[in-house]
């Protein structure tokens, strides 16, 4: 099976090359037979990549240490779930994984959209296959997971224990699923540029796949934050690391697209801009990968550096060049159909939303590449870290949060003063009351106050929208509260799913703002000694060291310290942090010792204990932090995921024809406000 997998990889390369060539030829000569052959070539590529992947999984699960990849990424003492996930934990495997997802996506996208898109399909297939060919070629020539060692080691090196975490098992595949999904809208955008055709069906395909990409990126990013928080032990969940940034960039452009696409759907405007956004998302996804793989920029993910860097750089340059050429020469053919009427309208709000999202994306991109630029210009090495990103992005982020509340309240085309007054009264009051209340309670930090006031405002908007919609249904159809809610969301999934995503965003912002009150204590404790301090809410805490203990499970040596914690004199339990040193079956040490953080979570506060080191066998050095509201980051992420699922649910597309935006045309129908939809 392993040999079959290895051979399939090479066959896949041929298939992708074939598919690329004949698809483009079919598109250019308008020959349906060539186009068909190209599509079949893509399907065959998928089949071959699938075989290759099964081959690699077989090698991993049978622990065939004669393969360099297997010996380098697993050991015989590892739990099998991580042996399975080792497929994508290394360079070569993740390249193959990328090809697997892309070929699968490509097959699904082309198979489901062939009818009615005969003109676009060959170009889209050719583009997907060309991207695929690049990934397979890189896998074959530069990072082949089937490379054999010239000896067979007794045991493998194992996986870095910090990657052996449930979050890490699913975070990378989600990010890959998100990254790779940008390739499909990109392929259709390229097809639109080649054929100068861009209609409603194009829109629906591109939107669907962008939504999918957005959805997986959201999950991937939030899981990555969770992993960093519980596993790396530095006490936060977002460090503005270059690779974190590069996963965030396509998320931002995807989000911008999912908003501006509504203007195109409703008003036929911004067609060019939407094509540019789609293209940007893909190029940023490739940029992110180039960044991780090239080692140009130092990052927490530098473990993934390898010789594929130059390949990616070349691919990125070529893809950018071709796209810029196409956009420059053909974009003017995609003219707008209507024009904006007012600066105070839903359309204009979406434009401002795009401005801020892309502004944030630019700021992050700029901060990420600036060290390289600065070193090139001044020969001076600098660091662009969290203080920069926070200073630049916090104001932009707050403006964006404000727009999240404003957008849904403004009518399409042109909002009147009375419309504005009626819509804004309640949410604005909620926001002002929230801010005033917190000020009265003694909160003084201006950014944080503004953030919470805006959170109140946006939540006010969301609740008002649901309330109005449900009231309308109750009045018109005489439905109960629950039925009205179910029908309201079910019959207009895009709109109300979107609001649920907004609610998740509010939770995230509230949690981010809470971190401004984080408190950290650097503590040295002997067995039996106590440390007393206050948390950000003013509660008194007392931590008593229970002493240092050691244990030796099968695959590690563990040294830990337990702290008995008391809050306002009441015992809340023991918080334990450990250092683990992993070893293989031959008792050889694998990797440096790693930290297991002790976390006690409540809705208001995380108590976060990190064992930083030992003075002697009795004395532990610890960092005890109070991180307010962290759990709301995970809750917000979860809510966003639910909202995303509601928006994506396939029925939404079909039902829209009856209930969705048509509600706008029939004021009496479901969906609340006649014009404010």
């Amino acid at each position, binding site marked *: 099976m392993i040999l079959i997998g290895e051979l399939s990889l090479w066959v896949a390369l041929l298939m992708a090359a074939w598919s690329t060539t004949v698809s483009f030829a079919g598109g250019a000569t308008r020959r349906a037979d060539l186009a068909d052959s190209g599509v079949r070539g893509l399907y065959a590529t998928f089949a071959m990549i699938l075989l290759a992947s099964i081959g690699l999984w077989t090698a991993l699960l049978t622990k065939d240490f004669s393969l*360099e990849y297997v010996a380098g990424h697993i050991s015989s003492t590892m739990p099998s779930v991580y042996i399975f996930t080792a497929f994508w934990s290394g360079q070569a495997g993740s390249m193959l994984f990328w090809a697997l997802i892309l070929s699968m996506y490509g097959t699904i996208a082309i198979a489901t959209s062939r009818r009615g898109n005969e003109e676009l399909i060959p170009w889209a297939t050719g583009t997907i296959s060309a991207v695929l060919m690049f990934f397979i070629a890189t896998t074959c020539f530069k990072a082949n997971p089937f*490379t054999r060692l010239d000896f067979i080691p007794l045991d493998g090196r194992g996986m870095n224990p910090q990657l052996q975490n449930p979050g890490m098992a699913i975070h990378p595949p989600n990010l890959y699923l998100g990254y790779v999904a940008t390739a499909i809208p990109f392929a259709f955008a390229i097809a639109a540029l080649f054929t100068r055709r861009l209609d409603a069906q194009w829109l629906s395909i591109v939107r669907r796949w962008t939504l999918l990409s957005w959805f997986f990126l959201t999950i991937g990013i939030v899981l990555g934050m969770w992993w960093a928080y519980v596993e790396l032990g530095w006490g936060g969940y977002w460090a503005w690391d270059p690779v974190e940034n590069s996963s965030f960039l396509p998320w931002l452009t995807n989000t911008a697209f999912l908003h501006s696409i509504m203007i195109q759907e409703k008003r036929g405007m911004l067609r060019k801009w939407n094509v540019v956004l789609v293209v940007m998302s893909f190029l940023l996804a490739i940029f992110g990968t180039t960044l991780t793989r090239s080692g140009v920029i130092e990052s927490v993910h530098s473990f993934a550096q390898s010789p594929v860097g130059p390949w990616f750089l070349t691919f990125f340059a070529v893809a950018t060049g071709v796209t810029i050429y196409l956009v420059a020469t053909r974009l003017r053919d995609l003219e707008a159909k209507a024009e904006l009427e007012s600066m105070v309208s839903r359309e204009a709000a979406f434009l401002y939303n795009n401005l801020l999202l892309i502004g944030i994306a630019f700021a992050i991109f700029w901060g990420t590449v600036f060290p390289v630029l600065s070193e090139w210009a001044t020969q001076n090495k600098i660091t662009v870290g969290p203080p920069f990103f926070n200073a630049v992005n916090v104001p932009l982020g707050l403006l964006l949060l404000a727009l999240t509340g404003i957008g849904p309240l403004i009518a399409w085309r042109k909002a009147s003063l009375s419309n504005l007054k009626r819509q804004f009264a309640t949410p604005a009051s909620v926001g002002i009351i929230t801010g005033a209340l917190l000020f009265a309670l003694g909160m003084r930090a201006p950014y944080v106050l503004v953030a919470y006031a805006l959170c109140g405002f946006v939540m006010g908007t969301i609740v008002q929208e649901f309330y109005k919609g449900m009231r309308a249904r109750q009045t018109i159809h005489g439905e109960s509260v629950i039925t009205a809610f179910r029908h309201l969301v079910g019959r207009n999934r895009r709109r109300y799913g979107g609001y649920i995503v907004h609610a998740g965003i509010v939770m995230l912002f509230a949690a981010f703002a809470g971190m401004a009150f984080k408190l950290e204590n650097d503590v040295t404790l002997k067995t039996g000694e106590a440390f007393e301090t206050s948390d950000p809410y003013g509660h008194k805490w007392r931590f008593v060291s229970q002493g240092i203990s050691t244990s030796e499970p099968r695959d590690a040596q563990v040294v830990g310290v337990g702290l008995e914690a008391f809050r306002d004199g009441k015992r809340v339990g023991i918080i334990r942090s450990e250092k683990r040193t992993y070893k293989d079956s031959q008792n050889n040490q694998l990797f440096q010792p790693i930290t297991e953080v002790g976390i006690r979570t409540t809705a208001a506060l995380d108590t976060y204990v990190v064992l930083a080191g030992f003075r002697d066998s009795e004395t532990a050095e610890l960092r005890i932090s109070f991180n307010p509201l962290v759990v709301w980051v995970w809750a917000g992420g979860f809510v966003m995921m639910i909202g995303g699922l509601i928006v994506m649910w396939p029925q939404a597309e079909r039902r829209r024809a009856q209930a969705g935006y048509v509600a706008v045309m029939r004021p009496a129908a479901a969906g609340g406000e006649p014009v404010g939809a």
Partner: protein
Amino acid sequence: MSDEQAKVLSRRGFLAGAGAGIGSMVVAVRAVSQQPNPRARMTHDSSLVRDTSNLFAMDQGAARPVRLPPKANAVKQLTNTQRDALEHQLHCQCGCTLDVFTCRTTDFSCQVSPAMHRDVMALVDGGYGAQEIIDAFVSTYGERVLMAPPRSGFNILAWVSPGIAVLVAAAFILAFLRRSQSSRTAPLGPAAKGVDATDDELARLEAAIRRDGE
């Protein structure tokens, strides 16, 4: 040649090409797999512990002494909290992306951040203020020891560019909106294209919008 023939020929060509490809690949892969791979040299004892707990290639020798003679009649100017805040502004040089405080209180194996911490403490004990300590670190390590670039010289570009970019784009959008407004005569027709509504319904909507606007 009919379409059908063309299809058959291309499929045959495709299969022949694929067959030849598979054959040559089998030969090539066999040949390659028989040769020892020069890249794949992994001995079991060496460099196993090279990977660090922070997933970095760590440079344990990166710390440089930052020492200044204590001031005459030195009095501590910084509390421990202020010192920790200061360490949050200094970038650990071990190769991680963390600041000195966070790295030294997180990473068991890093020897660089504790060394930098000792230098900070010695300078605090020597009566130096926050800015003086930062300057001393910059003169030893260069600007990369700061967590964010200084707002001067070439680096000012880092700070102002995002703001300028957003303002320019905002100006562009406003200009676009102005232009749209001045040239607008757009009837509802094209906007509503593709929407499932009769002309009568569209007219009623237009009227509703007017009413709403009043």
